[in-house]
Structure formats: structure tokens, C-alpha cells
């Protein structure tokens, strides 16, 4: 039976168990005068969970683990038939056998070894399948019988069911946390492998980035240099330009929307600005590369400036536009959270509206605004698509925004596209860059949280 059919069977059995449990507890309670502990629906759920939970786990585990086991058994089988294959050849053979068994390898490429292997593999698979189906269905029926046997008017079905759901929720939140931990650990691990090949100081403080290294031993080519300073400098410059655009525009639009705009205008202007956040960054990217960068180059030429056609300025400007809704939306929320009584107090002293905003409202909202800006910076640092398309790939160490620069994220993309060996310094460098990037954005987010908690005024 296929996985999906088994799954449907479990679903059907679960529904049946629920109805059965509910009906049974009604019958049991009706016969005696004891007050029932849990409501009918909990008894039904209890039986359903007994019937479904364990088989479901077995089904998932079996589906996940059995391919590994089957592959190992197939390799063992083939090894016995032809003991002198190299590891690479064995890998190719296994792939061929599997392809043949599902019919995607043409008959002409097959030999006896492949045919035998394929037959053996098909047998293994069908045995595993049958065993799985039997195990799942027996477990389900056994669970149903166990659950039904437990039912009694004084049986505490509700706490049992609620405990199960609590565990399910714990697992759900654990998945997110464990994934994060896993990613960070793999970043750290691969980064240390990178530092085996390239000294850490050369990476962090080197000023030359050219990761081209020989793919084959005998190839003519540089040994590569992995000084990340130009990348971080480029990232910082583009982020800085983006913030120059986004902070004033975002803040002023937030102030306008929360303090001056009438409710009707606010009603469509706020979602309108937030739509900016919904535009895919790749669209911003070609907007930057195809329209903004050429426009800047041409208008720069008109006033006698030389702009490269991929400039930090173009990428920074467009990224700034992209960041505007972050700053305006978050700042708008914190400005709105400033109590009206403070505005009234300032107005009653004869402060004009702009005095009230500058001297009372904005200072009160400042911690929130600062944290909005920090979050926007971490977003800008991690942004990839715009800079890939508009900023260029040349690792120039320059302070001139008219030149082409590159960023950490762009170089991670560049390192990983194309064919590489997984353990080459070039590939591992991507992990090191990723780790540093992660560290920087993490610190910014922690700082943002700290600022908010430390300086927030408590209004009741």
C-alpha cells in the first residue's frame, strides 16, 4: 500500500474511532448513575488519538528511514556480485539500478548485473511495503482496542487528550528552535573547516578578495585570496546609502500619517506604503539594474561625473526605497502608541503641532524608532537580490559610491553558483561569510530589543 493510501486509512480509522469512542462512553454512562468525568468529545478524541498517534509516527519513521536501509542492502547485494568496484563506480551502478527499476533507464543500457539488482531491489521494496502496511494497521487496531478498553465514566480523558496536544505544540515550537540551532551549528562547523584552509586573520582583515582557485590540481590559476574587508566595506556603504534614503522618508511619512493625515487618507495611504514591502526584491533588483543605474550614469555624465553602470549608489537608492515601509510602518505604530494625553498637555501649554511632535511625541517614541531603524539595517545588510543585480561583483575597496562595489551576500551567491567541490575553500568561504553576516544581524536585533526594553517609557 502506498504511503498516501495508508495515511488515508489512518485518517478514516481515526474518524471512526472518534465516533465509536463517543458512542461507547454514552452507552457506558447511561447504564450507571456516576457523574461522567470528561465530556463525550474528549473520550472520542482519546480513542482516536490511541488509534492514530503511534501508527502515524511509525509510518513517518519507516518512510524516512527505510530508503537508507534499502540502499545499504542493495549495495551489499551488488558488492557480493562484483566485489572490485570503486566507491564512485558503485554509486553510479546503484543509481542505474534504481533508474532501471522505475523504468527510466532504457533497456539498451542494462546488463545482467543491473537486471538482477533491479529484481532484488523491487523485492526488497515490496517486502518493506507489506511489512509497513501490516505494522501500521495492526498498531492502529491495537490502539483502538486499548483506547476503547480504557473508557469508563470516571476515566480522565480530558487531561490525557490535553497533554497530547500540549506535547504536539511543544514539538512544533521545538522544530523552529532546533532548525535555527542546526543552521548555526553547521555554519560554525563549516567555518572552522574554512579556517583550516585560510587563516582567520587573513579572512577578517585581508583587503583583497578574489576567490578564484584551481578546480583541478593541474589547472593554471591563482590560489585565491579571501580578504573579506572589501565585501564588508561594500555592504556598509550600500546599507548607509539605503539608510540615508529610507530613514528621513520613512520617518517623515510616519509622522505625516500618524499626526497630520485625516483618517480617510490614512486608511488608504498606510496600506499603500506597505504594498512597497510586498514587491518581490527581484523586481526591485531589475528596476535598479535596468532603470535607476543607467539613469544615474547618464545624469552623472551630464554634470561631469563618472559613474560606473553598476554603482553602489543605484543599489543603495533602490534598497532605501525598499526599506521605507519597514521604517514608516514600525515608526507609525510607536508614534501612535504615544498617549494622546501628552499631545494634549503640550497643546494646552500653547505648543504648535510641529513643536508638539518634535519636542514631545518623537522623543517619547524614540526608543521604538531606533529599534525600527536597527531592524531595517539588519534587513538591508542581509538583502541580496537588489545588490546582485545592481551593485556588481567586483570587490573594490573604495569609498566612492559611484563605483561598482560588492557585498557579502552577492559574494555568497557568486561562490555557490556553478560547479564546485563541496569542500573547496571557495565553497567553505560562503559559510564563513554567512556566519559573519548572521552574527552582525543577530547583534543588531539584540541591540534593538535592548534599546526598546531599556528606554521604553511605561504608560498605563
Amino acid at each position, binding site marked *: 500500500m502506498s504511503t498516501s493510501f495508508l495515511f488515508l486509512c489512518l485518517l478514516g480509522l481515526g474518524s471512526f474511532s472518534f465516533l465509536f469512542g463517543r458512542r461507547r462512553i454514552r452507552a457506558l454512562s447511561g447504564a450507571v448513575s456516576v457523574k461522567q468525568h470528561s465530556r463525550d468529545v474528549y473520550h472520542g478524541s482519546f480513542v482516536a488519538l490511541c488509534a492514530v498517534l503511534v501508527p502515524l509516527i511509525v509510518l513517518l519513521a519507516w518512510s524516512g528511514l527505510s530508503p537508507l536501509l534499502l540502499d545499504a542492502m542493495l549495495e551489499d547485494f551488488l558488492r557480493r556480485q562484483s566485489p572490485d568496484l570503486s566507491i564512485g563506480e558503485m554509486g553510479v551502478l546503484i543509481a542505474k539500478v534504481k533508474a532501471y527499476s522505475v523504468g527510466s533507464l532504457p533497456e539498451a543500457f542494462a546488463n545482467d548485473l543491473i537486471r538482477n539488482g533491479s529484481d532484488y531491489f523491487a523485492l526488497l521494496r515490496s517486502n518493506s511495503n507489506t511489512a509497513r502496511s501490516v505494522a501500521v494497521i495492526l498498531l492502529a487496531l491495537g490502539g483502538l482496542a486499548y483506547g476503547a478498553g480504557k473508557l469508563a465514566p470516571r476515566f480522565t480523558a480530558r487531561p490525557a487528550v490535553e497533554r497530547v496536544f500540549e506535547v504536539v505544540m511543544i514539538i512544533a515550537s521545538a522544530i523552529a528552535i532546533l532548525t535555527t540551532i542546526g543552521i548555526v551549528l553547521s555554519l560554525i562547523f563549516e567555518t572552522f573547516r574554512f579556517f583550516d584552509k585560510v587563516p582567520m586573520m587573513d579572512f577578517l582583515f585581508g583587503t583583497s578578495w578574489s576567490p578564484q582557485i584551481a578546480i583541478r590540481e593541474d589547472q593554471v590559476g591563482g590560489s585565491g585570496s579571501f580578504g573579506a574587508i572589501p565585501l564588508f566595506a561594500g555592504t556598509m556603504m550600500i546599507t548607509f546609502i539605503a539608510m540615508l534614503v529610507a530613514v528621513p522618508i520613512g520617518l517623515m511619512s510616519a509622522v505625516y500619517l500618524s499626526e497630520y493625515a485625516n483618517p480617510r487618507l490614512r486608511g488608504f495611504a498606510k496600506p499603500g506604503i506597505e504594498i512597497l514591502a510586498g514587491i518581490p526584491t527581484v523586481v526591485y533588483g531589475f528596476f535598479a539594474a535596468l532603470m535607476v543605474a543607467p539613469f544615474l550614469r547618464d545624469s552623472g555624465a551630464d554634470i561631469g561625473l563618472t559613474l560606473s553602470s553598476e554603482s553602489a549608489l543605484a543599489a543603495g537608492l533602490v534598497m532605501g526605497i525598499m526599506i521605507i515601509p519597514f521604517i514608516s510602518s514600525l515608526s507609525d505604530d510607536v508614534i501612535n502608541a504615544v498617549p494622546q494625553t501628552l*499631545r494634549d498637555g503640550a497643546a494646552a*501649554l*500653547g505648543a504648535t503641532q510641529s513643536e508638539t511632535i518634535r519636542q514631545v511625541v518623537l522623543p517619547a517614541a524614540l526608543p521604538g524608532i531606533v529599534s525600527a531603524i536597527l531592524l531595517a539595517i539588519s534587513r538591508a545588510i542581509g538583502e541580496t537580490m537588489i545588490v546582485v543585480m545592481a551593485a556588481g561583483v567586483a570587490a573594490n575597496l573604495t569609498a566612492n559610491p559611484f563605483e561598482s562595489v560588492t557585498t557579502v551576500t552577492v559574494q555568497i551567491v557568486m561562490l555557490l553558483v556553478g560547479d564546485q567541490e563541496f569542500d573547496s575553500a571557495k565553497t567553505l568561504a560562503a559559510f564563513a561569510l554567512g556566519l559573519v553576516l548572521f552574527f552582525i544581524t543577530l547583534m543588531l536585533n539584540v541591540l534593538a530589543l535592548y534599546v526598546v526594553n531599556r528606554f521604553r517609557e511605561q504608560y498605563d
Partner: protein
Amino acid sequence: MTDTENQNVKIKARDVTVHYGEARALHGIDLDLNANEVTALIGPSGCGKSTFLRCINRMNDVIDGCRVGGTVSIDEQNIYSDAVDVVELRARVGMVFQKPNPFPKSIYDNVAYGPRIHGMAQDRATLDEVVERSLKRAGLWEEVKDRLTASGTSLSGGQQQRLCIARAIAVNPAIVLMDEPCSALDPIATAVIEELMEELRRDYTIVIVTHSMQQAARISQRTAYFHLGDLVEHGQTEAIFTKPQNQQTEAYISGKIG
């Protein structure tokens, strides 16, 4: 219903109506308020007393959909005429709110805020003097003189309210409006502020909205009773509380309605 018995009128309201959108909150109020007196506005919730108070410094202007009709004159000048600048008006008419609302700034900056925005102090020494004098008048100086740089929000509720009073009188207004200034305070803090009002009335005209009948009786020289957007009765506080002319007033002050 004009008071003819006194010549010392500071604020003169004539046929004041207020609409919030379609709903009418005040129905043509005529009321004279005297200089150097405390006038208490009393009445059940929603009767329009706070709305009337906010007409005197045009704080209703900031509420969307609020329209004010009739005239309110201060020293014979209609504050609703086009010639009046609302910023300048509010410098003459200070206000203390129901909930203490110190700015999230230092105690010093809270008091100095008004003088600063109105350019009333040319140098630091003058400003220091204004801050000290205002805090002294508000009875807060002794408690805060050693920590003027501490945040205004770090004070207790009663201290915060006195800070707000100091802030309001720092710009030297002619009139101080108080909207239930003691409703968030305990009896001891309330007593301090009531004493303060008695002291302040020598220099200012004070209008106070209060829910406490005892407070109105203790501190005010005149009382006006509002009910459902109408001014039902007003006059000397003693007269209102001992022999009210109107049935409704009597019912309210004796606790039968409210």
C-alpha cells in the same frame, strides 16, 4: 442668567453650543466666571462640564468633527474670533488634566517647556528662576530640588500632578483650567492640591471640573451645575449647596442622582 452681582468678570460665555458630529453636547451655555475665584463645574458624567471647560482654551479644536458655536470672551475679547491665535490663547489659559501627563523629560525640562517655546526666558539664569518659582508655587520644590534632572515620569502620582500644575503656571497664565485634577490621586495628595488652589487663586482665575461634591464645596467660591448639556443652576457655592433653587441640583448634590 447673567450674574449681575459682581463686576469682576474674567470669562464670559454666551450661547455656547458644541456638536460632536451630529450629537449635540452643549445646548447654549451662558455663564460668567470671575477673576481670582475658583469656579467648580459639577454634574453627572456626560453632562458637558468637561466639554465646556475645553471651550475656554479651545482644546476642542483638536477633536475631529467637533464644532463650537456661540462666543467665549476673555477680558472682553472673543477667543473664537479669527483674530485670536490659538497658540497665544493657550499661553494665557493653562490647563491641568485628569491624568497626570508629565512629558518623558526631566523635571526641569517639564517646567521649562512652556517658557522655552514661548521665548519667555532669555538666558539660563532667568529660566532657572522661573522653574524654581513655579515648582515652589506648586508646592513641589522641596521634594525635587535635588533631582531636577530626574525624569518627570519617575515621580509619584500626586507629585506628577503638581509637576503638571507647575508646568502650567510656568508660562504665567491668567486662567488655569483643571479637569478633575484629583481623580487619580489619594486623599493626602488631593489635600495638597486643594491647598494649592486656594493659594493660586490670588493670582489666577481657576475653573475646575470635579466629581467630588465635597471638593467643590471646600475649594470653590462659585459652582455651576450642568445636566445633559444644559447649565441648570449656578451661583455662590454656599448658596448652591445650602439652598439650591432647582430640584435637579438638589437631587444631585444630596446624592439622589449622579
